[in-house]
Each structure stands twice: as structure tokens, then as C-alpha cells.
């Protein structure tokens, strides 16, 4: 089977260049589509089920990180194996530095043949390993998911402004949901059961109340103790001690019940490894 790929890059000339360089570095690779924004990337990836994704991080509409996080959950893993994900980024973006720091492979713009060759070699190796009968499908999926997790954490952490405050948060200044926002409540972090990103706000939920803050989740995360608060979804961070039980529905999707809250909390496939039975 010929390897297939999808390119998501909003600048037409750079997309064209990546395609041309890939044709030289990996002649068998079939580029199924080139798209220019995050939503199209998700849609086309689900339609074409390629084996490799090249996602630009900065794109109009949904960016590369958002598109990847959405795909991670929407991907039909029983129809086609999870694709290999490669981020494309300009040298001066923070993500590039984060990837370098953690020795994560990525494609640097402008694309240079020699560097791309290394990425291609690694991708070929990964695809070969995945297709070998010696590796059970579940293990292959788990290792691909862990790779995606690493990528998203590095790129997402970098997006949370370098040098941003990482001192542990004790109090959260929030406005009460449904209020005019004229009163600011100081909510002790110990009372928070979970955070959920919603459009332009992050909802802060305690056992009995709901508050809103404007700090994006990705900027909030570095200020939370990772042992206490777990990210379980691209938009949700829960207090680990508040988790009462974990359920899997017929479609295989995971949900959490929290103490003191009635709603079900969805768990992304990327973070399902946290709840594997001991």
C-alpha cells in the first residue's frame, strides 16, 4: 500500500514548496489533499484517512493544535490506524523552540531538503513498525497516541507564552456566571472541581457554583499542580481527587463522574491512558 499524506498550510506558496520537497524526498508518498485552514484539515483527514498529517501550527480559523486535538477524538481508529502527525512551523515561533528543547521532530519553514529527509526517514520507520504483524494494533495505537500527546503538550505549552507565570495558583479572581461581572469573587483553588474552556471564557466550577474567567486554559495550565489537576480533554481540566468513577459507553467513548457535580465529563482519547484499570 502506498503511503498517503495530507498537508494543512495556509500560505499557498509554502504549501506548494512542502509538496514539491516531499515529492523529491519521498517519491512514493501520495499527497491526497492540501488545505489552508484547521476545519478543512479535520474534514478532509476524516474523509481521506491519510497515514501522515503535516499540520501548520498557525492557521486561520482553527489552528493546527486545535485541529489535531479534534481529530484525535474523531478519528475512526477501527477503520484506519491513527496517522503520524508532524507539525510545520516557522523558526521564530515559540513551538519551534519547545520542539527543539524536547527533541521532537518537526518540519521547519522554509522547508530544507536535508532536514526534511530526516523527518521522512523517521516517518517511514514508524509506518513500517506499525504495519509489521509483530506489533499488536492496540500497542501501535497507544504509542501513536502518546506521540500526539507529546506533540500537543510541547506546542500547547509553548503557546502559553514563554516566561509566563508558573507560580502555583492559590486564588482565582473570577466573576460569577450570570452576573454582570461587576463583582469579582476570590475562589480558593481548593474548591475548584474542574475547569472547562467555553468559547471566550473558561468556566470555573466548584461543587455549588459556576464562575467565569478570561485567562485561556493554556495559560492557566502551567499555574496548576499537574498532580492535582489533570487535563482529560482539550477543553477540560479536572481535580483528580474529585473523580468518582469512569465509564465507557457503547461507542467506546469515556466519561467521568465527579463528586458533587451531576454532569458527565468527556475524556479525550488522548488522555484515556490516565484511566486504564490498574
Amino acid at each position, binding site marked *: 500500500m502506498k503511503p498517503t499524506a495530507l498537508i494543512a498550510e495556509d500560505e499557498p506558496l509554502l504549501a506548494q*514548496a512542502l509538496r514539491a520537497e516531499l515529492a523529491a524526498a519521498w517519491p512514493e508518498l501520495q499527497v491526497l489533499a492540501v488545505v489552508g485552514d484547521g476545519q478543512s484539515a479535520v474534514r478532509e483527514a476524516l474523509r481521506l484517512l491519510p497515514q501522515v498529517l503535516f499540520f501548520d501550527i498557525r492557521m486561520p480559523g482553527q489552528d493546527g493544535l486545535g485541529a489535531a486535538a479534534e481529530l484525535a477524538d474523531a478519528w475512526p481508529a477501527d477503520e484506519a490506524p491513527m496517522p503520524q502527525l508532524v507539525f510545520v512551523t516557522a523558526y521564530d515561533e515559540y513551538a519551534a523552540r519547545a520542539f527543539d528543547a524536547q527533541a521532537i521532530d518537526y518540519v521547519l519553514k522554509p522547508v530544507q531538503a536535508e532536514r526534511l529527509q530526516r523527518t521522512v526517514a523517521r516517518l517511514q520507520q514508524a509506518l513500517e513498525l506499525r504495519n509489521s504483524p509483530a506489533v499488536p494494533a492496540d500497542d501501535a495505537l497507544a504509542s501513536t497516541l502518546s506521540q500526539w500527546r507529546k506533540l500537543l503538550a510541547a506546542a500547547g505549552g509553548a503557546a502559553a*507564552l514563554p516566561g509566563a507565570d508558573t507560580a502555583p495558583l492559590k486564588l482565582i479572581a473570577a466573576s460569577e456566571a450570570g452576573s454582570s461581572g461587576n463583582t469579582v469573587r476570590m475562589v480558593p483553588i481548593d474548591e475548584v472541581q474542574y475547569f472547562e474552556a467555553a468559547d471566550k471564557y473558561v468556566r470555573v466550577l466548584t461543587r455549588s457554583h459556576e464562575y467565569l474567567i478570561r485567562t485561556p486554559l493554556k495559560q492557566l495550565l502551567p499555574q496548576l499542580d499537574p498532580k492535582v489537576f489533570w487535563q482529560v480533554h482539550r477543553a477540560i481540566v479536572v481535580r483528580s481527587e474529585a473523580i468518582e468513577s469512569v465509564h465507557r459507553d457503547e461507542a467506546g467513548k469515556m466519561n467521568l463522574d465527579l463528586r458533587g457535580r451531576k454532569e458527565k465529563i468527556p475524556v479525550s482519547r488522548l488522555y484515556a491512558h490516565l484511566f486504564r484499570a490498574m
Partner: protein
Amino acid sequence: MIDALARTFTPENLRDLLRHGITTAVFSSVIAAALAISGRGDWGSQFVYSLSIGMIIWIVIDIGRMLLTRRSEKKWPLGAPGVLLVLSGVAAGFLGGNLIGDAWTDRPYLEFWTFAPHKFASTLLITLVATVAICYFYYSRGKAKYLEGQIALAERDAADARLKLLETQLEPHMLFNTLANLRVLIATDPPRAVAMLDRLNSYLRVTLSGSRALTHPLANEFQRLGDYLELMSVRMGPRLAYRLDLPDDLRDVPVPPLLLQPLVENAIRHGLEPKVEGGEITVGARRESQNLIIDVRDTGAGIDNAQPPSEDGGFGLAQVRERLATVYGARSSLGLVAGPAGGTCATVTLPLPP
């Protein structure tokens, strides 16, 4: 304590102290010589009186000055403390110096106090005048030096501000992305690469000279915007369309260079870039009675009041406002409103030259 001493008696202060001491000694000697020549007494005793008075004043004033200005950058205590310091220096020197002189010449202490009041008055006057003269001389020198330092500091700040402006105008992300596109074009479409390089060339030229010139014609400003928009449209492809409307009779109006650049950058960054299908930017200038009105319109994502301004988003607008206020004061303004068909419209109003 030792710390405080070390802070007060820095090598620089000690050098000053020594210099002032030598000056005072020379000055006192000159006064003594003048008094001796005018027949006020023999040379030896005049020197003893004069030097004793001078040295005591020097020690009191100079050390007092250092202690009083320990926590300040200035070298001289201003206001009442400064005046008091001089007066107490004079008093201490006059009393102490005369006592030492009387002891040296074996006279009863301070006898001239009672039997030669005119001599008493003239000595005190000479002491006072000489002290004030020396203090004033060093005070003005120190003040000049302090002001020179302040000017150098201000010049450095201005240079920093210029550099910061230049940095925002030559946004590295824009520059490197343009170069990345150029690299592709060189291989695939050389004539277009040459055209893009020419645009980049004139963009850089205006940016680099513009950060120095005070004004340039509106036509140049529009040309510059054209270069920038053309570079951006190579990158964004069909997602960016633009139009520049400049009536002929407004071409020569002088405007601060690069004034409009941040507005066009905002229109792209906050208007068109987040929108998948992109949009159009229109920059138009027109005359309205005695004013020049320039609109920068985009059909992009629009103003989002709920969205807190990003850390760099506010900088562009603030910079335009600040420059307008500096050049035209209250007669100019910058407004930002939602466009009638979505998008954003930034309007600059400034007075036309008579």
C-alpha cells in the same frame, strides 16, 4: 554602619573631597597673603588663621554634604539643608579657626570680639564670601555634570524607543515568512520573485529611513502601504485583496512616516488572518473642510469587545494615538468602529496644513 560608610565615602567622593580640600587651602593662602600685604598682621599668623578657618569649613561642609546626599544622585543638598550647611560650616570655621589662630599667636581667646569689632566684621565677611564662592563654584559644576548625565540618559532612552519602533515595524515573523515565500518563488517563478524582492527592497528602505524623518508626503505613505500589502498578498494568496485610494490633490500632504502601518497590520492580523476566507482591505484618504481623513477598512473578523486585547494588539493603536497627539495635539483623533458590513474601520483625522 560600615556599609553606610562605604556608601558615603566612595572613591569618587574621596577624590572630590581631596580636590575641594586643596582648592580651599590654596584659596585660604591667597586670602592670607592679601591680608598680610594689606598690613593686617604678619604673614605667619595670617596663614594660620586663614588656613584653620578654611580647613574647618571644608571638613564640615564637604563631609556634611556627603552625608546629606547619601541617598540622592545629586551632589549638593537643595533648599534649607544646603543653606544651613554653609552657615554652620562658616560658623564652625570662623569660631574654631580663630581659636586655633589665637592659640598659635598666644593671644587671649577671641579678644578681637570685644575690642576690634570692625576687624571681626571684615573677617567674618571675607570668610562668608569665600565660602559661598567656593561652594557655588562646585555646586554649579556638580549640577552641570548631573545634567549632562541626565541628558545622556534621555538620549539613550530616545534611542531605545526608536529601536523599539523599528523592531515593531520590521516584525521578524513577517520578514522571515516573506523570505520563506521568496525562496519558493526563486525556484518556481523567478520573475515574480524579482518583483517581490523589489517590493521588499523599497519596503525596507522606507522603513529604515522613515524611522528618522519627521514627515513624508502622503503619496510615499501610500506607496509604502502598497509594498507591505503586496508582500502580504503574495503570502496570503487569494485570501487578501486590497485597494488604495489617494486623490491627486492630497498626494503632497506631509504626514508622520509609517503612521498608518500599524493600522494596516492590525487589519491583517486581527481582521483577515483569523478568517478562513480572508477579505479585503481598503485604505482611502479624503478632505473634509480643514481636515484630512484616512480610513483603513477591512472585511475581516470584526471588533470583538468580549475578547481582551492581546498583549501586542493594543500596542499598535496606542502607538498611532501617541504619535498623533505628539504632532497634532487635540486637533487629531483615531477612531475604531465596526464596519457596516462586518469587519473593522479605523479612522485617522488630522488637520490639513493651511
